[in-house]
Structures are given as structure tokens and as C-alpha cells.
């Protein structure tokens, strides 16, 4: 599942953090504690991975032709001559001070790099999930309402095709058709090349920056570039979101209160939206949150094909060139987002779903 960018890998966790209801303060502490422990584990494993990789970080920096003295100098500079645990302790100390170190490869602070690549992913993922939800939810509801009808069948096929399509193939074909042949959308990259750095970077989200700057040419151009990859990611979320929506809705629609409401003569629209749909909101938000978390991890293959400088390809490149500071930094950010979204959905369950109590 690692690279397929499907959303199958994670279903909403219904296991609450603590099995019985605790006083609020204690629960909060417990939650914070579990975040800390998870993050620590995450860092430690990443750190170990970095050290057991057969890629020599020194070689990655000095290149093929370095002399031994150049090599040795960098080896010491990186502190690789110290014991593993000492290295980890140093690293942890820095992280606690919000210092992720400098990228071994491009000599910039990792935090600066992440501040540059993460907004690219955030922008893409946000728009992607937006498309996925805006199309996926109605499709799922419709499929549930008309269970077994042709609409249901189409929804099923649309979703299953989404689950089954290799994204790199779809991406390349999409680029070929919509950009290469039809010219409807912008090509690879976040904006057309002569719009690069035209608007000041405030948020790092080009659409937002352009809007803030009032530069609608840039906005239009950026939108034409993001639309295709975002639709692609949107399609994958759509597949998942629509299937889950359908599932949840079917459960509600077969419930007694729905029959009662219908018998009472309530309009179908009200039955569906005011009752059934209202009851699945929390579950749905969880699904969407997880889907969003998956997109925020960065979809490496999409990023490669669309020359999108996002966090997925950043971490991959870093990993393959043994730039461990960058990998660790990226992992922390992605891991934290995932944990927070997970906790957020757990909380939603606790607050809104009586069954979880």
C-alpha cells in the first residue's frame, strides 16, 4: 500500500484511546503522553533506518571523486564516529529545540526545506480531498438511496476503477490528453515558468498567495496547473469516500427511525439529509480526515509525474541519497499530522457517538 495512494490502508480506528471514560484532565494527559511516546518511537525507528541503510551519507555529500581526506573530514563533521545512542540523543535534543538540522545534501535548514515543500503538498491534498468529498459524498448517498439501480452500479464501478488504477499510468495519460493534446490545463510544475516567484510567498500556497496579492493571472495559471493532479488525487479519495458513504448510509436507511419518518410522510429529501445523513456525519468526517492524512503524506508518484515539489518526493529523494536529517524532519511532520488527525477523529467519536462511550 505504500505507494499506491489508495485509502484502503487505514480505516477509521474505533478503538478509543482509553477504554473507559476518564476525567478530562487525565484523558488529556494520557493523550499527550501517547503522542509523545508514538513520536519518540517514530523518530527512533527512522533514526535506526538511517543508520542501517547501505547508502553512505558521507559519499552522498562528497561524491564519487573525493579523496580520502575529504571523506574523513565530512565523516567526523557529521558525528558518525560517535556511538549510535549518543548521536540519537544529540538529535533528540535538537528536535526538542525545534531544530531539525541542516539537509546534508543542500546545506539548508531542514525546517526551511519543509516549509517550502509542505505547502505544495498541502495545497494539492486540500484541493484533492475537496474534489473527492464534493463528488464522493453525493455519489455515495445516491448509490445508497438507489441501491441496486444503475446509478449504484456506476458508482461501484467508478469507485472500484479508482481503487484499481495505477496512478502513475493515469497521471501520464491525463497529462498527455489534457495538457499535451487538448491544452486545457497547465503542464507539470506548480505555475507556468514565467510566473515563478512573481507573487510574494506568504503562506507558500500559491493560490492563496496570488489571491492575497490580487494577482489573478498567477492565480489562474496556478489553478490550471493544480487542477489535473488534484483531480487525480481527488478521484482516489472519491473512490474511498463514496464507498464508505454508501456503506454508512445503507446502515442508516435500514434503521427503524427512517421507516417511521417515511410513514409519517416526511419528504424523501428530509429523510435522507436531515436524518440519515446527519447521523453519519461523524463517521464520515473520520473517513475524510484519514483520507486527507493519506494525501498529506505526499503522493510520490503523482509528484514525480507532475514535477510537483511536495513532501513525498522530498522525503523519497532524501531517503535515497541518505540525507537523514531531511528524512527525519519529513517523517516527524507527516507522523505528527497523522497522529493529530487520528486523535481528532477519536475525539469526534467520543463526543458525538454514544456507542463509543
Amino acid at each position, binding site marked *: 500500500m505504500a505507494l499506491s495512494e489508495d485509502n484502503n490502508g487505514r480505516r477509521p480506528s474505533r478503538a478509543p484511546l482509553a477504554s473507559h471514560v476518564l476525567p478530562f484532565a487525565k484523558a488529556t494527559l494520557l493523550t499527550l503522553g501517547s503522542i509523545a*511516546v508514538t513520536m519518540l518511537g517514530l523518530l527512533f525507528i527512522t533514526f535506526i533506518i538511517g543508520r542501517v541503510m547501505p547508502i553512505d551519507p558521507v559519499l552522498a555529500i562528497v561524491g564519487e571523486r573525493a579523496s580520502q581526506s575529504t571523506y574523513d573530514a565530512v565523516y567526523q563533521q557529521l558525528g558518525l564516529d560517535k556511538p549510535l545512542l549518543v548521536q540519537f540523543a544529540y538529535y533528540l535534543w535538537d528536535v526538542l529545540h525545534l531544530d531539525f538540522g541542516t539537509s546534508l545534501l543542500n546545506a539548508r535548514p531542514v525546517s526551511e526545506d519543509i516549509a517550502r515543500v509542505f505547502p505544495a503538498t498541502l495545497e494539492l491534498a486540500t484541493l484533492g480531498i475537496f474534489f473527492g468529498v464534493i463528488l464522493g459524498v453525493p455519489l455515495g448517498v445516491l448509490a445508497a438511496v438507489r441501491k441496486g439501480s444503475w446509478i449504484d452500479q456506476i458508482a461501484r464501478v467508478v469507485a472500484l476503477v479508482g481503487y484499481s488504477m495505477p496512478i502513475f*499510468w493515469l497521471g501520464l495519460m491525463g497529462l498527455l490528453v489534457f495538457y499535451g493534446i487538448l491544452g486545457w490545463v497547465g503542464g507539470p510544475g506548480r505555475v507556468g515558468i514565467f510566473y515563478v516567484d512573481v507573487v510574494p510567498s506568504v503562506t507558500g500556497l500559491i493560490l492563496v498567495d496570488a489571491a492575497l496579492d490580487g494577482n489573478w493571472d498567477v492565480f489562474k495559471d496556478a489553478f490550471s496547473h493544480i487542477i489535473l493532479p488534484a483531480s487525480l488525487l481527488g478521484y482516489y479519495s472519491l473512490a474511498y469516500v463514496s464507498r464508505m458513504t454508501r456503506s454508512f448510509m445503507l446502515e442508516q436507511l435500514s434503521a427503524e427511525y427512517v421507516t417511521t419518518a417515511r410513514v409519517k410522510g416526511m419528504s424523501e429529501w428530509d429523510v435522507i439529509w436531515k436524518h440519515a445523513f446527519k447521523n453519519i456525519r461523524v463517521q464520515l468526517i473520520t473517513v475524510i480526515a484519514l483520507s486527507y492524512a493519506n494525501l498529506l503524506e505526499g503522493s510520490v508518484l503523482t509528484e514525480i509525474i507532475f514535477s510537483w515539489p511536495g513532501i513525498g518526493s522530498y522525503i523519497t529523494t532524501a531517503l535515497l541519497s541518505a540525507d537523514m536529517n531531511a528524512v527525519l524532519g519529513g517523517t516527524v511532520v507527516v507522523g505528527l499530522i497523522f497522529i493529530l488527525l487520528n486523535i481528532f477523529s477519536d475525539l469526534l467519536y467520543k463526543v458525538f457517538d454514544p456507542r463509543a462511550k
Partner: protein
Amino acid sequence: MAETQTLREWLLTETPTSRRHAKMSALYQGWLSFRSNTMAMIGLGILVALVVVAAGAPLIAPHDPFVQELSNRLAPLGAEGHILGTDSLGRDILSRLIYGARITLYIVALVALIAPIAGLLVGTVSGYVGGWTDTVLMRITDIFLAFPRLVLALAFVAALGAGIENAVLAISLTAWPPYARIARAETLTIRSSDYISAIKLQGAGALRIITKHIWPLCISSLIVRVTLDMAGIILAAAGLGFLGLGAQPPSPEWGAMISEGRRFILDHWWVATMPGLAIFTVSLAFNLLGDGLRDVLDPKAGE
């Protein structure tokens, strides 16, 4: 009761005569409801065909999948002797796809064995034993869940070296945590049931309860989940192949074939598209099958 009872009647009886009879009957009824699901049957059909093709690859394939012919490279669809054309080194694409089916099945079988079993072990132990064990195991599960799956898989493959076995291990490593969660949740509900308490009173040990009584009950939901995940697993393996970290050349792994063919996508689109279609078809088959199985085995989770 009629003297001559057909097998069908025996299976559909409402008054089973033995435990085995009841089990068989339930299975048969499941099969009947599964069979009425056209989509799921299509999925099953495709997968059966895949197994047949993989098993009979040497008989079916028109060419040796490794024989190169540089003078006849990138032959188009329908070229003489090469129905699906040839790749960059002039190898027959159809034959490579046929042999590639073996690799796909191999990946699928291995991951389907490793990941759910690992998840089942962790989940049931965690759920049944509870306490500190539960906390520690679930924390580990959380760590793996929170990991960018890509980093985990890539790092693993990079550390152990590229290759199909390592790719399978890497994928399994990223795939087990959700199974552990499911198994734990199931265990928690089963654990407190009267039925387990009764067995406990009879003096059964934890090991026996977990393996003999909890595992069988978790299996059905896991099977559904695994089948639905299979598509993702195939795509993940293809993705690793795409990044050059899966099967090693000249192995005709489908993902690696797409990766090789993507260079020609603009002028020789079929080179990447044919393996793409193969991956798509098999993934779709698993999804259709999984959807159908869910209806049968785990109705509450689905429709």
C-alpha cells in the same frame, strides 16, 4: 422426509443433523448468495483465469519472455507474431505479461500470508491479554501507522536491497497495523462473551483460547479486508517496481514493465499501457471479489 435427498437439499436443510452439516450448510448458502452477485463472480473468474495463465505460462506464452531482438523493438499492437507488440529490447510483451502473472501471484500470496497473520497475532494477543501488553503493542501499532508508509517501505527495501522478496516484506511491514487493529477490536468483543467465559471455566489456557476460539472468529473479517487490500498491495508492488526497487531486471514484473515503458508513453503508449491494463484488471478482480465476500461474510460492514 424423502428417502432420496439430493446434495443440494442436504445442504439447504433447515435442520442440520451435525455440527459439520451445519457448517457445510452455512458455507453453501454463503456460496449461493455470493454466486448471485455477478460482479463478484466476474472477479473470481478473472482470478481463476490468472492462476491458470500463471500455471500454464510456458504452454501459453508465444515467446520466451527474455529473448531480445533489438531490430524489432517497440513493435506496435498486432505486429506479426507479437499481438501486444514488443518492448524496448524487442521482447514480446504478451509473453512477459503471462510470465509476470506468476510474479504477481507470488507477491499476492506472500503478502496475504504475512501481513494478516502478523496483524492477527499482535491484535489478538493485545486484545486478549490486555493491560501493559495491550498498551505496548498498540503503541507500536500506532507508531507504524503514523509512519509515512512510503518511508517505511522505501527504507526497508533500500536497507535490504532491491528485490521482489524484500519488496514483499516491505509491503507487509506497512500493511499489518490495520489488521492488528481489526483483530484487536474483534477480540475485545469476543473476549467478554459468555461463550469464552464458559471455555475458561473448563480450564482452557490463553494460548488455546486465542488459537482455537478467537482466531477462527476473526478470520472472516480479515479475509474480506485482505481481499479488498489486495489491489492496493499489487499497486504498491508495482509502485516499488516503478521506482526501481521491486523486481530486478530482466524479471517481467508488471510494475517494472510500466516503469520501463513509461519513457515511450507519448509515441509507443502500448508498452506501458498493456502492463497497466493487466494490473488494473487483476486489482479490479480482487476488489470485485472483496466486495462480494464482504456481502457474504461480513454483512454488517457492508451493505
